[in-house]
């Protein structure tokens, strides 16, 4: 059950206390107790480097981008465009021209559903998702289905919370699936999906593959080319970056073929009332003034995690997850929802005799922040036979001691409700 022991064994020098010192919010107290933040999967906290980069830009180097000939605008454009290179490197993309900035993962998926879905897919084709998707990777496809005559197919998962590859493959069989959209890592079960195999199956059936990397990109190295993905999305605020910025990566040929999503300034080459000519490259999808300061903040976040290194991060989180799984399994009446072999630092659970809401409230009064509810994954909840769960999720700043506090407190929560 120890998640990915090979990585854990590597155990590179990882000084979690030094990292914690970079996150000012972690020294807050909540209800008079030390703040134990176990809700990073919902949104991560921000290191000083990110906060500082944003403040610094606004204090010393800011103007609108792409539009000005003056020094401030040129320099701000440089800073903004520089992050495109950073994101391309983070994802191991072939080119910076494949990186589109969006508000978040949700917008990135909606962009694909609108532009690729309505512009390239044809009525009668199908989109294939899985039972473990976040609403962000369900609802846009439902809307496409209802407006554009695209069939929506759903691949099953196993009782342990792993993708059922046989189900996935069989739904591809008739060749009508134009696009598969699959999460890289489940935000509820912690499951990592075997994307390279998923991609091979999809491509063999003539389908493109969109990967929802919202959770995955935070924990491990992502190489979109090695994965064989065609689209990859993630969201800045879970990667220790600011809110208001997300990323769509897509193969250049796809971006070139896709019509724009939104219209406005910056995404056009020229406009007359009769006809507008789209800009080329990712700009076509970035209408209006972008989230300049947030993109700069995302760049600082990427610098920050890159300096720590994804090997070290993955090892730290694998060790934490292993520790948490063994500590939580030992809590009487606690059931862990999702038992995948390849999993990351997100653990959902139920506690006999205590509703997730009540669990979360009692934990909160002890300074411990977990999420309780359906985690924007209603269909997955139904599939796993639960109405809600509590969820503890870990970040680079999470400590073994915090997990011990969680486990100890849960024992007392259980007796409180008995």
């Amino acid at each position: 059950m120890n998640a990915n022991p090979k990585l854990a064994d590597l155990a590179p020098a990882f000084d979690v206390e030094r990292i914690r010192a970079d996150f000012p919010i972690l020294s807050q107290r909540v209800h008079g107790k030390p703040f134990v933040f176990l809700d990073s999967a919902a949104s991560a906290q921000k290191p000083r480097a990110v906060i500082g980069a944003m403040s610094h830009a606004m204090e010393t180097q800011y103007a609108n981008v792409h539009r000005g000939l003056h020094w401030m605008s040129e320099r701000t454009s440089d800073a903004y465009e520089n992050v495109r290179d950073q994101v391309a490197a983070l994802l191991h993309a072939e080119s910076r021209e494949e990186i589109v900035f969006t508000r978040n993962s949700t917008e990135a998926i909606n962009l694909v559903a609108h532009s690729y879905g309505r512009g390239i897919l044809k009525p009668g084709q199908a989109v294939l998702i899985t039972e473990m998707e976040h609403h962000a990777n369900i609802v846009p496809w439902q809307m496409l289905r209802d407006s554009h005559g695209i069939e929506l197919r759903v691949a099953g998962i196993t009782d342990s919370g792993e993708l059922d590859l046989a189900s996935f493959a069989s739904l591809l069989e008739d060749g009508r699936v134009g696009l598969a959209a699959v999460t890289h890592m489940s935000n509820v079960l912690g499951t990592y999906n075997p994307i390279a195999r998923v991609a091979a199956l999809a491509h063999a059936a003539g389908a493109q593959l969109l990967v929802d990397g919202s959770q995955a990109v935070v924990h491990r190295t992502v190489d979109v080319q090695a994965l064989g993905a065609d689209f990859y999305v993630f969201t800045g605020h879970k990667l220790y970056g600011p809110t208001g910025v997300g990323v769509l990566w897509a193969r250049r040929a796809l971006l070139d073929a896709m019509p724009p999503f939104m219209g406005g300034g910056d995404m056009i080459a020229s406009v007359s009332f009769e006809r507008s000519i789209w800009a080329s490259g990712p700009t076509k999808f970035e209408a209006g003034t972008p989230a300049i300061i947030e993109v700069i903040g995302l760049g600082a976040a990427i610098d920050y995690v890159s300096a720590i290194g994804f090997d070290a991060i993955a090892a730290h989180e694998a060790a934490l997850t292993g520790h948490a799984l063994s500590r939580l399994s030992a809590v009487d009446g606690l059931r862990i929802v999702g038992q995948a072999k390849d999993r990351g630092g997100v653990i959902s659970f139920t506690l006999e005799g205590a509703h997730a809401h009540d669990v979360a409230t009692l934990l909160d009064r002890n300074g411990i922040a977990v999420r309780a509810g359906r985690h924007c994954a209603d269909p997955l909840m139904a599939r796993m036979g639960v109405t809600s769960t509590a969820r503890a999720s870990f970040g680079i700043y999470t400590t073994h001691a915090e997990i011990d506090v969680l486990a100890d407190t849960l024992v007392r929560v259980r007796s409180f409700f008995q």
Partner: protein
Amino acid sequence: MSQSHSFDDVRDLYQNIILDRARNPRHMHRMEPFDACAAGENPLCGDQVEVRVRFAAGTTVAEAAFEARGCAISMASADLMAEVVRGRDAAAMRSLAADFAELARNGVSGSADPAISTLQPLSGVSEYRSRVKCATLPWSALIAALDGAKESSHD
């Protein structure tokens, strides 16, 4: 790292009567027959409650009952609600629902309705912003049932 594990400070929320009602609800069953019925759902957590009402002589409540999957607060609230609405007509239930919503939000209610004292143990939710809805969910379902709707709208 050591953390205090006393739950004394949640006792205002989880008073004994709440815990007792949540564990052993008196009015949780699939009542048949019934005259009005509606379900409510809290999208945040997935809590669901279905409320059923039977009228005596067509105007006042002979009996109310509920079925639910929910947290201690919503269970206890539903159970106490089923108790206090007995003998009331629709107008009296609506006004009590409004008084209770006030109690849940503010911790106090200016109402002179004697039922408020029965519901008083739920006033602790006012200190727990996101739990207010748990307490009011059964009442929303009740109102929806009176309105003849099948599902209460959650806002």
